[in-house]
């Protein structure tokens, strides 16, 4: 029993190269550590939220190479050579039009699901600027919001689509 008095130790930390919000970094963490905990506990980036831990609720959503993933199901080694974008990255250049749409339409209440929701909306619109309601539904059905009933979120997504179209058109004209 004496052995049990010593803490069980995880695999040794290894150096995992990746890009986080545009910065090249090396993650010195055990390879199986969940990205969610790397972000929150090791890097003190708490915009990514912890909620169900099983990839069902989307509160911990981040983009890996532009694809939305649940960071609670992503292990550190899977990020090797990848580019990770968190809510902090989305906000780095000021408030994104998607975030502004959430503000103006009231697409949040307690706000705990909001970072993950905005990541999912961004990943959707970056790939498909003009999604159908069914495509929006599919893209966001992995993000649970318990407060809003999704009304404000749906209105925010529509507004963000409009704004992105307008800015694209104005850029096209001026360009």
């Amino acid at each position, binding site marked *: 029993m004496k052995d049990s008095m010593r803490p069980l130790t995880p695999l040794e930390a290894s150096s995992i190269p990746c890009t986080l919000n545009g910065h090249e970094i090396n993650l010195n963490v055990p390879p199986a550590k969940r990205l969610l905990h790397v972000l929150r506990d090791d890097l003190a980036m708490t915009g990514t939220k912890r909620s169900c831990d099983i990839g069902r609720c989307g509160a911990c959503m981040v983009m890996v190479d532009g694809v939305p993933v649940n960071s609670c199901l992503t292990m550190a080694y899977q990020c090797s050579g990848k580019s990770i974008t968190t809510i902090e990255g989305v906000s780095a250049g000021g408030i994104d039009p998607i975030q502004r749409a959430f503000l103006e339409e009231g697409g949040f209440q307690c706000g705990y699901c*909001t970072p993950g929701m905005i990541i999912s909306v961004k990943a959707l619109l970056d790939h498909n600027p003009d999604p159908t309601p069914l495509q929006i539904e599919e893209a966001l059905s992995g993000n649970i919001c318990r407060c809003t009933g999704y009304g404000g979120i749906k209105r925010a997504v529509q507004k963000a689509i409009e704004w992105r179209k307008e800015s694209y058109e104005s850029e096209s004209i001026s360009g």
Partner: protein
Amino acid sequence: MLLNRKGSGARWRVRPDGPDKVTGKLAYLTDMTAPDMLIGRVLRSPHPHARITAIRTEQAAALEGVHAVITHKDVPGLNRFGIAHPDQPVLCEDRVRYVGDAVAAVAADTIAIAEQALRLIEVDYEVLPIVDDAEYALTDDAPSLHSQGNLLHRNGFKRGDVITGFDNCAHVVEETYYTPRQMHTYMETEGGLFIFGEDGRLTVYAPTQHGFMDRMQLARILAIPQSDIRIVSSPIGGSFGGKDELNVQPYGALLARITNRPVKLHNSRWESVRAGLKRHPMKISMKTGVDCSGKLIAHQVRIIADTGPYATLGAEVLNFAVEHVIGPYRYDNLDVDGFSVYTNNGMSGEFRGFGGNQAIFALEGQFDRLAEKLGLDPWELRLRNMRKSEDPGPFDQPIALTEGAKQVSSAMTASTLWQERGKLGTEEQQAEPWIRTGIGAAFTMHGAGLGFGIPDPAGGRLTLAADGKIEAVFSYEEFGQGLIATLEQMLIEQFGFASEDIRIIIGDSDVVPDSGSTTASRATSMMWKSLQNLRPLFEEAVLSKAAEFVKFPARQLRFGEGGVYAIVVNPDSSAEECLITYPALAAACGEPVTCTTTFHFPTSATEKVGAHFLYTYSAVAVKVEVNQLTGRVRLLHQYHAVAAGPVMNPQGFLGQIEGGSSMALGFALTEDAVMSGGQYLTKNLDTYLVPTIAEHRGTIDVQAIEELPEDDSHGPRGIGEVGSVTLAPAIAAAIYDAVGIRVTKLPIDPELLLAQSFDQLLEKAVSGE
């Protein structure tokens, strides 16, 4: 007024807490850390009912990196908690009564070490027979879970004589309704940070709905004065009633005290499920009779509420259900008998709607069934029995008079959705003959405030602070409902301040006055009333100071954006000019100018505990689609008419009704924390199904009816809960309209709605037909 952004104009505002929420900058209390922080973990019972014969913690304590292992022996004060009736052990001594019961707790350097330490704690249990059914709990055969037996609380209400009443009825409907163990499912699970400072005071950073109540309970557990505890309790990632009671706070506080280090706890979802509160599962039997004209003659109700192992607010929830099974109708003869019963199932407690959700589902179901027997339109039957504005409340108590019942009924029946009833096209049904659509509606009056006989303090403070900010200080909590936004909007619209002039302070027991709890749809009403009381006081105090400095009579001054202005008698005479800015005024005053108000939530002149005085009225119509091949129900359109007085914050109001209705959709169709033998079968969000965006394909209209009687002095009524109580019975009525099947149990079992039973389908498949 149909609530939407466009129609609200400039009153539709970006929430002041919004930018930090959409950028992820906002630090929730479970995001906090502190230097030298330890991780706390709680060991909970694997058994729903067992005797503890031994607890051995030596091995866990000897593990490197473990700083404390505590059991009941380490609780210096009262080893119990519970807002109204403290009967839940902080750490169990010799018996566990549910799978969330805490037996020990540890503080360690890391999560992994803390979890390893939990595995090293040895607890010897002697498993006891369980009580997993509330009706069984009331029988003589059932083991007794508490010294007073298994009945937490019994409450009822009688008028006339139902036995004779039923003899005089032309039609009687008898039905039993069942409602699920709904989970709050706040996205942020329980947690927080606990720090004993060098001054020996404890600071608790943990979500709650009533900071001062947590302070009182923690002082009792730790055996220290309340003044030695500071509760910081906002912002909160959702609560819905679920964080009203203590959860992790006792463990964090005890571990921090013993280790003299900051301790953080943050529940996993599974720990939140097993330990946390749920909505009371209720079995409600109703017998209701009418004469041949449809006049209600007699109404008999029996409520059995499964309150789980400990009290929290189980008694108060039952009182609310007793009131709301009577509801907005008048009966000659009435007999309601309710029981809140201890079991070894999960903890039941406070949850948005507070017993109204279950009661209204049952009551409205009776009206639909009686109307059919009478050959009457179901709404016509409601109208014939609906309370008049001057009628007393459900318990015959005086209530604040409004036309709310009539207003919402008229609005709902005039809605396009309701008008469509009976005219549903058959085209789509021919294209997909297994799809049936139907329209249904339901009605409610929902009480606000804690009710007669329960301390329900209110109040707040306005200060012109030293730096010139107008400080509005309340002890209410922001858990998403938009209380900060609503308070800011009231200050801007009622006083004339600019948002930059205002500093709102909430959620810190060291600096806020006791405004009572942020529960029971009460906070907006109480903030409004506070500002009504404070406005003349603050004008008097601040404007008279300003008058001294600007050499203008105080009565000719007013608050404005950025400072104090002269009241312009003739708007053409001169341009608006700020006479003195708030910072300049504050500097001239030399010290802060403060006004406070304290009062009690208005209650009825009655002796009936829990009876309400203020009510919100709502009528809801829905259109649903029933797929008879899958048994699945889709909500196509909803219309909510809500009479709650003036709308303080249109975005907040709309969000509360939309969000409340979404919870009600889950309550009606998918949500149930399923238990078997006292164990949860639905342990996380893969099996416990809250509505996603895909379940919200339909549209929703929210009609706010603002008109109140001219002499009304109570202002805006609560809207935090009413959106969550009326949808389920409306869906049940719409399903009946669609497929002629009566629903008595929520969530609705899809198999009930299949055109052919599964057995029939199977037989067909096997026989090859």
